């Protein structure tokens, strides 16, 4: 029997486990059990191993080699502090999202004492401090740094990714403070240039080295191999690998991943997003090639009320309200026809709304020379693949219908959603495993990833 490789995702609701035979590139079993992160992460972990053992035989060595990602204990909570909202605050936000973070607060310009209190109350894992292009404004980032240096214990980790010319001053400010301050490259070295890569890396390192410990996730490390990244990072790595392929094996090309969960809907695009039309003027900050957005109001469980409201604009089936209420209470759905219909409607709405917010749009502006199209954000009309992931889509009875929410519509031509992509399903909901494996064995990760995708 070949070695078994186990991958774990400590989610806020479920702890998921997938076991692979890497030699034969085969998924042996996938199970999920309720998470117990807020009490003791190891309890849920042991439950999961027990559950997994019912399906396959696993040895002590297999358990010790398992690697995990986590979005538990509130995820990786980041507060962004920048200068101009549309520039360095936004660049910081994009960088943090790309590192799999959850943005809990956003502040621009000089912080007030009240705002500092607010940040402390948010109790973030990381404060991402940006501001000023390189050689640009120094005053604001330096002043904000001095406020953060005086803040209480709730502010522990600070990443500085702003005007490099201010770094010596900021260094001096934090001099002997007890805070863990890390300097990295400016997220926006000049107007219109985004550099999120270095900040992504620093956030992830911090997650592994410090934050897992603070969240009690480290306890799990005594049992398994390691917890190496936040869950959204793992999905993002999988998306990147599937799109680009490896040197030996080509990928699927530009793609979009939609992941509908219990509390959020995440959208990832791996695409340049250049305009598909000529004579379109691009405005606003350029967006990253690998872009992640999180819709914190679109979940199929914790915040169902928002989707319920959105659904009122559509024609809803009979007993809609009751069924939604039922979903909210029980989570599990009974598969009678109307229930299925309601679940499909809500998941499709989540996909539709989240993708609409993710993609760029075209606005016509009137000029003396006639109407002129102006594009803001990424043009994803030519994207080749749309992959559906997350329980609500992966295990949906009609995933194709749900994923069609991601498609371009003739009635809304200004919204640059994919026009004719191949719809693909992460049928076993294992994208996180592909991302976790990508770092150590990208070849296997790619072929496993491709093998368990179903073309709809």
């Amino acid at each position, binding site marked *: 029997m070949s070695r078994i490789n186990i991958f774990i995702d400590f989610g806020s609701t479920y702890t998921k486990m997938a076991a692979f035979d890497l030699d034969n590139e085969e998924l042996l079993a996938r199970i999920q059990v309720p998470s117990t992160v807020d009490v003791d992460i190891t309890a849920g972990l042991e439950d999961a191993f027990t559950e997994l053992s019912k399906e396959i035989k696993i040895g002590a060595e297999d358990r010790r080699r398992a690697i995990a990602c986590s979005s538990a204990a509130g995820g990786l909570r980041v507060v962004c502090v920048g*200068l*101009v909202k*549309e*520039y*360095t605050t936004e660049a910081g936000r994009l960088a943090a999202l790309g590192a799999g973070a959850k943005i809990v607060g956003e502040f621009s310009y000089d912080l007030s004492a009240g705002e500092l209190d607010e940040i402390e109350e948010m109790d973030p894992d990381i404060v991402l401090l940006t*501001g*000023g*292009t390189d*050689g*640009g*404004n*120094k*005053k604001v980032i330096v002043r904000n740094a001095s406020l953060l240096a005086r803040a209480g214990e709730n502010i522990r980790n600070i990443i500085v990714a702003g005007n490099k010319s201010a770094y010596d001053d900021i260094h001096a400010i934090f001099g002997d403070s007890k805070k863990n301050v890390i300097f990295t490259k400016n997220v*926006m070295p*000049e*107007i219109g240039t985004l550099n999120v890569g270095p900040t992504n890396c620093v956030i992830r390192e911090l997650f592994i080295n410090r934050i897992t410990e603070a969240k009690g996730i480290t306890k799990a490390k005594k049992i398994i191999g390691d917890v190496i990244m936040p869950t959204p990072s793992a999905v993002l790595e999988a998306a990147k690998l599937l799109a680009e392929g490896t040197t030996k094996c080509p990928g699927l090309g530009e793609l979009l991943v939609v992941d509908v969960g219990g509390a959020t809907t995440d959208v990832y695009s791996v695409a340049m997003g250049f305009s598909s039309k000529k004579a379109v*003027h691009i*405005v606003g900050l350029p967006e990253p090639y690998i872009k992640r957005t999180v819709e914190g109001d679109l979940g199929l469980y914790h915040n169902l009320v928002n989707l319920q409201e959105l659904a009122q604009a559509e024609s809803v089936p009979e007993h809609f309200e009751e069924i939604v209420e039922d979903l909210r209470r029980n989570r599990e759905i009974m598969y009678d026809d109307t229930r299925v219909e309601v679940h499909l409607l809500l998941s499709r709405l989540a996909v539709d709304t989240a993708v609409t917010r993710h993609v760029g749009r075209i606005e016509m*502006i*009137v*000029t*003396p*020379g006639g109407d*002129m199209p*102006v594009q803001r954000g990424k043009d994803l009309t030519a994207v080749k693949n749309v992959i559906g992931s997350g329980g609500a889509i992966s295990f949906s009875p009609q995933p194709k219908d749900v994923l069609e929410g991601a498609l371009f519509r003739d009635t809304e031509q200004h919204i640059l959603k994919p026009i004719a992509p191949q719809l693909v399903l992460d049928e076993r909901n294992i994208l996180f495993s592909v991302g976790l494996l990508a770092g150590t064995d990208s070849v296997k990760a790619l072929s496993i990833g491709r093998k368990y995708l179903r073309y709809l």
Partner: protein
Amino acid sequence: MKENPTVITGTVGVDAHVIGTKVLSRALRDAGFNVVELGALTPPEEFIKAAQETDADAILMSSLYGMAEIDVRGFKEKCLEAGLEDIVLYIGGILGVSRHKFADDVAKFKELGFDRVYPPEADLDAAIEDLRTDLKAKGKL
């Protein structure tokens, strides 16, 4: 005091004419300025945001479609509001429609808060010299 002052250039409003501001940006860069080029179709507010983020010393706007007055009315006030009270403001191009005297344009745009106003065929070297003089006067060079 800076060795290489930062200046923002661009064509304001919904004006797509980009050549003038490109030529100007090139000349400024050759003259040692740090140039943030916003290009055509730049909303007035964008000049302000870019100036805040880059701690710019001057904004040099172009406009060639005759609508500048509408685009920049209240611009100086917005600069004051955004903490850019000290920034040097220039504008140049075809600043009005139909026949009119350039001297009237100068008076009008100075009234709107611009430090200097240039016709479409202005001499770049002279304008850059003006800019140096004005920056020195404000202690920015």
